[in-house]
């Protein structure tokens, strides 16, 4: 019996061992199968998939051509034609696959590419034939039609194009989304506004910024001194009718019409109509109709549009609607050109003083305040959205607005411009504050009229009168309706700030200051 039991136990053990062995082999087999499937099959598939081929022959005309095994060398007045692309160069090297089909062409000696209305030239041009992709290296210059392919245009009716543009304009009225980090502005060197809560950008920083367009990249791209306005483009209506080209100068460019790709990097300078942009990188986004719709600029972006200048980390520019979205440490500067009568006075000093004396305010003595012929409005924020057509500019995220001696701060600002491009109003739409020398207003909504310097504070308003040490201010206990603005000197403030350094006016829902 014992022997039988022992035999049975041995049999069971052997059966278990064999089962384990079978399982081990099975798992090993499954694993091998899996690895073969995952690693080997894709490789074999990749090897078997044929490389993309050129779909049309390449036409090469030159003084000399040398046919080596897989390379064709062309020298002397080389003209290469592939579909609608024509490249002219002193020297070209064409690479072929073993079956003799062209794969890639390299042009040296500053070649010129023409593709319908588009043009590219550079020190070296690489043409990846199967993808119809051009890579321009070294002093690359391109002129890409913002109207896309003319052949496509010919097919489309003019009305259709207008409809598309109208749709885009309607879309452009949307508000921007706040992006980018919030950073405090560091006081610039030599700033005389040490008393201000934040640094005042010096007018001289961008004083030379607004000059004629510079099409050559050789000028320092990120410098404020090299700027343009393209005033001709803005004034000449006939130019507007013609298709505007996107002129790009950079170190490196990549262009593929078929896949709708245009990238540029390294000292990028783009001119489109009256906008001129310097940046580290550019990417054009094409629409389904083959037309470039949007230009994405990255890194040290410096855009000049008319009399406006915007600096940011990233800028998105909508070509059709001329809408510009900037994010990341955005700093915009808009020149406020004064009327001709202002400049003809022989002096830049403007007489300011008594204005309507509402609410029994005491008139301030007449004073003269220096007035530049081109006073800039500077807007600093995390993100900004500008539309050249509508004249609206909205800024979000830690917004600071500087104009003459006025400083505004708030989370959200809307700037409205007239048809001449001059700013008319700056509206702080959330809890914000506006400061002038000796005065400060805080409200849920503050409207700054640029021309008249009128300030309208609405919703839970507070007004602070801050006196200078020599003239300590007194509390402004009466109605908050009576104050004069900025450079026109505080009508009530000057008289009432003799005793106390600060004074507040609170409890009003609406303050209107003249």
């Amino acid at each position, binding site marked *: 019996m014992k022997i039988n039991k022992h035999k049975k136990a041995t049999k069971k053990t052997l059966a278990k061992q064999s089962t384990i062995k079978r399982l081990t082999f099975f798992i090993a087999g499954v694993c091998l199968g899996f690895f073969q499937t995952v690693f080997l099959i894709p490789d074999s598939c990749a090897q078997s998939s044929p490389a993309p081929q*050129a779909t*049309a*022959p*390449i*036409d*090469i*005309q*030159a*003084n*000399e*051509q*040398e*046919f*080596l*095994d897989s390379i*064709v060398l*062309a020298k002397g007045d080389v003209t290469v034609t592939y579909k609608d692309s024509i490249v002219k160069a002193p020297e070209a090297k*064409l690479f*072929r696959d073993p*079956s*003799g*089909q*062209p794969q890639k062409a390299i042009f040296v000696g500053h070649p010129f590419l023409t593709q319908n209305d588009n043009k590219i030239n550079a020190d070296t041009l690489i043409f990846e034939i199967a993808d119809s992709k051009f890579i321009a290296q070294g002093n690359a210059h391109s002129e890409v039609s913002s109207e896309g392919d003319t052949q496509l245009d010919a097919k489309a009716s003019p009305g259709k194009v207008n409809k598309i543009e109208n749709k885009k304009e309607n879309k452009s009225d949307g508000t921007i989304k706040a992006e980018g980090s919030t950073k405090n502005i560091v006081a610039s060197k030599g700033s005389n506004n040490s008393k201000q809560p934040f640094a005042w950008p010096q007018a001289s920083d961008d004083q030379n910024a607004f000059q004629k367009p510079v099409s050559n990249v050789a000028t320092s791209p990120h410098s404020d001194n090299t700027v343009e306005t393209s005033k001709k483009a803005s004034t000449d209506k006939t130019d507007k009718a013609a298709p505007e080209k996107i002129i790009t100068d950079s170190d490196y460019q990549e262009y593929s019409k078929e896949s709708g790709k245009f990238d540029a990097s390294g000292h990028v300078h783009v001119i489109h109509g009256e906008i001129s942009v310097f940046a580290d990188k550019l990417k054009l986004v094409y629409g389904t109709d083959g037309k470039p719709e949007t230009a994405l600029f990255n890194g040290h972006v410096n855009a000049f549009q008319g009399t406006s200048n915007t600096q940011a980390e990233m800028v998105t520019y909508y070509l059709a609607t001329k809408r510009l979205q900037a994010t990341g440490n955005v700093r915009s500067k808009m020149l406020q050109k004064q009327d001709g009568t202002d400049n003809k006075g022989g002096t830049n000093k403007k007489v300011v003083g008594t204005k309507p004396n509402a609410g029994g305010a005491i008139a301030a003595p007449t004073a003269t305040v220096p007035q530049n012929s081109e006073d800039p409005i500077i807007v600093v924020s995390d993100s900004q959205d500008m539309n050249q057509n509508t004249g609206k500019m909205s800024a979000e995220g830690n917004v600071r607005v500087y104009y003459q001696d006025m400083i505004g701060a708030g989370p959200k600002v809307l700037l409205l411009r007239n048809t001449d491009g001059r700013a008319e109003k700056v509206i702080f739409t959330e809890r914000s504050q506006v400061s002038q020398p000796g005065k400060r207003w805080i409200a849920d909504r503050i409207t700054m009229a640029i021309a008249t310097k009128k300030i309208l504070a609405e919703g839970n308003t507070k007004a602070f009168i801050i006196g200078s040490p020599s003239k300590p201010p007194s509390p402004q206990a009466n109605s908050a309706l009576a104050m004069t603005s900025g450079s026109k000197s505080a009508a009530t403030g000057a008289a009432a700030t003799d005793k106390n350094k600060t004074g507040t006016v609170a409890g009003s829902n609406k303050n209107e200051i003249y």
Partner: protein
Amino acid sequence: MLLVEFFSRNSSKLIGALSIPTIIVLFWFYAQYEANQQVSEFNKAQKVRPNTDETTITNYELKEVDDSNQVRWLLAAKTGALEPVSHDVNLTDVHVDYMDGKTLKMRITAPVGQTNEDTRLVKLAGLGDKQVSACGEEGKVKLEAAKIELDKKNQFQAVGNVNIVWSNAAKVIGDTAFGALGSKGSNDLSNVKLIGHTHALIGSVEE
């Protein structure tokens, strides 16, 4: 008397001494003159009746072998007129076959041509509308030109309206072309260089 004797003795000696080289020089000039006369007469005769001694061979053949005694190329012509002096052979209805072992790599056809049995240089030329044409293995390559010169190391030079077609790969024209024909282990036409008004279509080319 003494003076007469002196002169008679010495002068005769001097005259005798001078006459010998003079006669030699005169003979040399005469021989040279006669030789020139005969050469010019022969040349005149040759011009009047050229290739008098030329031998015409029907179904003329010439071949070039490499170091391993393999036929590199084989020239065949309907007629070959051999000039005995220069060893030039004037050919008609010429075919030059370039071989890779026993495989025919390329065949060149020309209405007329000339080769030299010493230098093995072959000059082929078109006649009238017919051009010199070269056709590669299975028609992969075609070359046409007004004149083609071939050396014994498979190098060629094509001159005048050169037209080369690589089937389904490229088509190129030019004034002059250089390269190698039917080289071992390479294409039928290799290292081709075209000069002057070159125009190529590369890719899927219809012949």
